[in-house]
């Protein structure tokens, strides 16, 4: 018979403890879903990115230069390992949008006339591609197009090479080269204030005076080629033409940001699901083993009537497998569903024109297997313990075991404790490991809650430091090239400007021993008050008269210490090679900055004092007036309004990270409830008969509840500090794993996070207690005494 009485018993037993089983399923669903979501999203995004890069011929090596005749391309093609090269003209532009007061910066990129581009192809979202030699027409980046609510056929005013031109929008495109369109030096994409445009090569050449020449080169290399060698040779070829050092995909700004974003997702993603799944597995293990322990007498009976150990074990395993099976199915369904949604969301966020799902079966099998193993091992352990007992003993109730006075009583507090308190204490002391495991379960629930809140706390803290302690200016602007201090005076004279400070930025390569890093030195005035540099204690660092103030992470990457000299190669026309000592460190969470006294920098560059940008303190009432004025200054290439940057950051956070965070918080809450409810429910079934006896003896429901919930409350209280500790360990590991060149995540938690986490745990506890309290109410006093539950 397939569906014999044993299977009937199985189904009814599961139904009887459906509340607990549901809680286990909930925990497992949460664990598996998070796992599947994160890995699914990551794998899908990576596949999407790689497919996009591949289909649209994203180049491997990039170089920009001053100006080279087209013939030079032949030399480049002769370098061994270069399979395709494409030359371009790229020009910075200022865009004047009528809807905005402030000037907008952008970039115009050439497209070959009469043929398809060999590299960095465009995906046409709407409109059409350019006709050969088409004049005054552009294709425009999709995000800019949308941010300004443009329409095909609209005209955009730009200042190119000092001349104002109106260009007609004929197409809307996406480029693998600008997945992230970030203005040079910016930390985040701002599609409203930075635009990308594509124009016919010949038209652009004419507009910027580059006839028959190019200033940008992209290269695709053979699969086996040595990229470092190619870069070196390329630099040699381009050097006479003002070539800057060439770089690979790893340093290509858009790809760098995309990779960093994915890496961040990955570190967070790896940590969160592994923690969630482990916690879920641990809980299932504990819960199942306790569940089985309550079945001790029935195991004894089954053995007494002739069922073998294997049959009994299989019976209970089926119970576990049924539950884990349900948990697995719901976890997988929820995981793939939410994962698909989230992949779609990220694809939009990154502006990938294609979408590839990649939900790995291996990942799913692993998640299910991991949880099942945990449950099965917990069950087997408990079954073995029950089955190892001779059936005669198993059928006897386990209770009257080896109780002794608790520590508190032995310490002489005997008189202060009521009988009921003594019962609680003795029970806890008799089963310290069990109490500890229950506390550990709750502690893990608390820890993953804290963990889930962490990201928002630390990112907000990071931004507070960035914009309240470091970038304290209201606006900063950059010029299209280095200007004399006269420009500073002119800006200061503009309406609403309360204070100005000079900035001089120089792209450089830093070398120490064999370590090398591209960066740019930012020159600041000695007592800079708007744009400041801070140290570890968050105090401002004054720019020393000489030497570099270096970001600690950068110093670590270069293996350089304060007092040692770094070789600096300036990546500008003169290509000076300087040797400058490191005189102080700075602590920054974002980027790899190097700072210098602007006077020292200017004198080293052997020039009359110059500035490339200005930090401005602004009278808030004059914003619009100033921006309008600046818009008319061709020398102003870019402008950042700090409050807008902050706002963009918050939007990006809300769009990407926080969605994942809120999913985590939701699942962490599930787990927290699942654990606590189960602990309470199992405690009740373990102590049910004893509690019924107390009721029979005349204790009120309140007093009985005190014994039950006293024990649980004690465990809950212990679990709180334990949870903080575990949370701390998890976060430290997370902070280390998230560290990248782009970001260092500060270890920082708001007090409110502790509050919210504890609140969720306590609410779960109270709700669980309430549900169990209703069960206490239902204890059948008579049958409990007869030994029938």
């Amino acid at each position, binding site marked *: 018979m397939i569906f*014999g009485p044993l299977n009937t018993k199985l189904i009814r037993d599961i139904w009887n403890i459906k509340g607990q089983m549901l809680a286990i399923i909930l925990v497992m669903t949460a664990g598996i879903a998070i796992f599947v979501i994160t890995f699914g999203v990551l794998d899908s995004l990576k596949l999407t990115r790689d497919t996009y890069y591949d289909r649209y011929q994203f180049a491997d090596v990039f170089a920009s230069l001053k100006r080279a005749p087209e013939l030079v391309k032949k030399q480049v093609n002769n370098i061994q390992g270069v399979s395709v090269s494409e030359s371009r003209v790229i020009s910075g532009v200022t865009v004047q949008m009528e809807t905005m007061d402030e000037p907008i910066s952008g970039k115009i990129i050439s497209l070959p006339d009469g043929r398809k581009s060999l590299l960095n192809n465009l995906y046409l979202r709407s409109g059409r591609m350019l006709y050969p030699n088409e004049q005054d027409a552009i294709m425009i980046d999709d995000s800019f197009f949308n941010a300004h609510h443009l329409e095909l056929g609209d005209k955009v005013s730009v200042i190119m090479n000092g001349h104002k031109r109106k260009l007609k929008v004929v197409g809307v495109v996406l480029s693998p080269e600008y997945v992230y369109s970030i203005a040079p030096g910016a930390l985040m994409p701002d599609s409203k204030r930075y635009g990308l445009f594509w124009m016919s090569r010949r038209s652009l050449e004419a507009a910027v005076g580059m006839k028959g020449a190019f200033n940008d080169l992209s290269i695709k290399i053979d699969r086996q080629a040595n990229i470092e060698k190619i870069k070196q040779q390329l630099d040699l070829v381009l050097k006479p033409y003002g070539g800057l050092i060439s770089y690979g995909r790893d340093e290509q700004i858009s790809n760098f940001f995309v990779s960093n974003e994915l890496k961040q997702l990955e570190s967070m993603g790896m940590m969160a699901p592994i923690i969630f799944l482990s916690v879920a597995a641990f809980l299932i293990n504990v819960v199942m083993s306790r569940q089985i322990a309550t079945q001790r007498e029935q195991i004894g*009976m089954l053995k007494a009537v*002739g069922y*073998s150990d294997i049959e009994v074990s299989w019976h209970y395993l089926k119970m576990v497998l049924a539950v884990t099976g349900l948990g697995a199915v719901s976890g997988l369904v929820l995981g793939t569903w939410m994962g698909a949604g989230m992949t779609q969301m990220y694809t939009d966020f990154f502006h990938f024109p294609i979408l590839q799902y990649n939900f790995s079966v291996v990942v799913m099998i692993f998640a299910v297997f991991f949880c099942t193993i945990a449950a099965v091992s917990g069950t087997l352990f408990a079954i073995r313990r029950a089955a190892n007992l001779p*059936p*005669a003993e198993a059928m006897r109730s386990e209770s009257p075991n080896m109780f002794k006075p608790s520590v508190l009583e032995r310490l002489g507090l005997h008189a202060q404790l009521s009988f009921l308190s003594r019962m609680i204490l003795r029970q806890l002391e008799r089963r310290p490991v069990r109490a500890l495991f229950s506390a550990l379960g709750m502690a893990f629930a608390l820890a993953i809650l804290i963990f889930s809140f962490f990201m928002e706390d630390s990112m907000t803290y990071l931004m507070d430091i960035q914009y309240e302690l470091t970038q304290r200016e209201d606006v900063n602007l950059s010029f299209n090239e280095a200007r004399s201090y006269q420009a500073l005076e002119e800006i200061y004279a503009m309406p609403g400007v309360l204070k100005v400070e000079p900035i001089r930025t120089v792209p450089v390569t830093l070398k120490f021993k064999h370590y090398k890093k591209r960066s740019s030195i930012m020159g600041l005035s000695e007592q800079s008050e708007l744009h400041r540099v801070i140290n570890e204690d968050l105090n401002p660092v004054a720019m020393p008269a000489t030497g570099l103030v270096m970001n600690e992470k950068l110093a670590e990457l270069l293996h350089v210490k304060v007092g040692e000299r770094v070789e600096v190669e300036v990546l500008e026309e003169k290509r000076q090679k300087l040797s400058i000592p490191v005189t102080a460190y700075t602590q920054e969470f974002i980027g790899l900055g190097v700072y210098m006294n602007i006077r020292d920098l200017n004198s080293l560059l052997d020039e009359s004092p110059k500035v490339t940008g200005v930090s401005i303190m602004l009278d808030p009432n004059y914003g619009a007036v100033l921006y309008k004025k600046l818009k008319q200054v061709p020398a102003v290439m870019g402008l950042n309004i700090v409050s807008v940057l902050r706002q963009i950051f918050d939007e990006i956070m809300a769009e990407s990270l926080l969605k994942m965070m809120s999913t985590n918080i939701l699942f962490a809450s599930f787990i927290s409830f699942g654990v606590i409810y189960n602990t309470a429910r199992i405690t009740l079934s373990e102590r049910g008969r004893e509690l019924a006896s107390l009721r029979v003896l005349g204790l009120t429901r309140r007093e009985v509840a005190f014994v039950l919930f006293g024990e649980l409350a004690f465990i809950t209280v212990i679990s709180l500090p334990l949870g903080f500790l575990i949370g701390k360990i998890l976060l430290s590991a997370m902070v280390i794993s998230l560290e990248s060149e782009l970001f260092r995540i500060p270890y920082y938690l708001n007090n409110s996070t502790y509050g919210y986490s504890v609140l969720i745990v306590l609410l779960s506890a109270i709700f669980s207690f309430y549900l169990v309290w209703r069960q206490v109410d239902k204890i059948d006093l008579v049958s409990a005494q007869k*030994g029938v539950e």
Partner: protein
Amino acid sequence: MPDPRTISFKTDSLKKSYITGETEVHALRGVSVEVPTGELVVLLGPSGSGKSTFLNIIGGLDQATSGHVYFCGRDLATYTVRELTYFRRENVGFVFQAYNLAPSLTALENVALVTEISPHPMESLAALKAVGLEHRANHFPSQLSGGEQQRVAIARAIAKRPQVMLCDEPTGALDIETGIVVLKALIDVNQKYKTTCIIITHNAAIAQLADRVIHFADGNVSHVNVNDSRKKPEDINW
């Protein structure tokens, strides 16, 4: 070697000791006794005299520290755990004081739990009929009275057509009238199927129903009485 046609159980210097806490408890101190096939045997004696331990060992629920238990000519002491399981499954019907029914199964299903795994069982419903409970077949244990639950337990025990029934205080939790009903059921089984029945009890009156009464005291058999004629339950002065 006893003849299995006449002797169900024979024990030889059966000893059992446990360690509880720091003291060693000698539950059985060398019991040597015979139980003839087909008899109704009552084990009498005060609490802690070793009756239950003895019953558990001959029923294969527990193993002796030393000595031998012969059942149908084979020594249970040499059985592996697996063999003991099959011994219980095929030969022994248990009835416990606390009934030990599966609360999530109906009366009929509780019986079927055993018929499922027995080599030549009777119909589950027939077993319930034998204890007069066919009309309660679809009730859960919680819907049955104590006496009814114990009769389900007896039905469960007889359903496998065991060679022996081992009953540990089957009426201990029941009132007198219900107890009589349960005992009648046991005697019926004994007479109808010629099943050897061994019943533990505190109640000396029950001894008058038995073919043989084995008295336990302090972990040993003090003496054995053989009744020439058995009384009927209703004739006993409880």
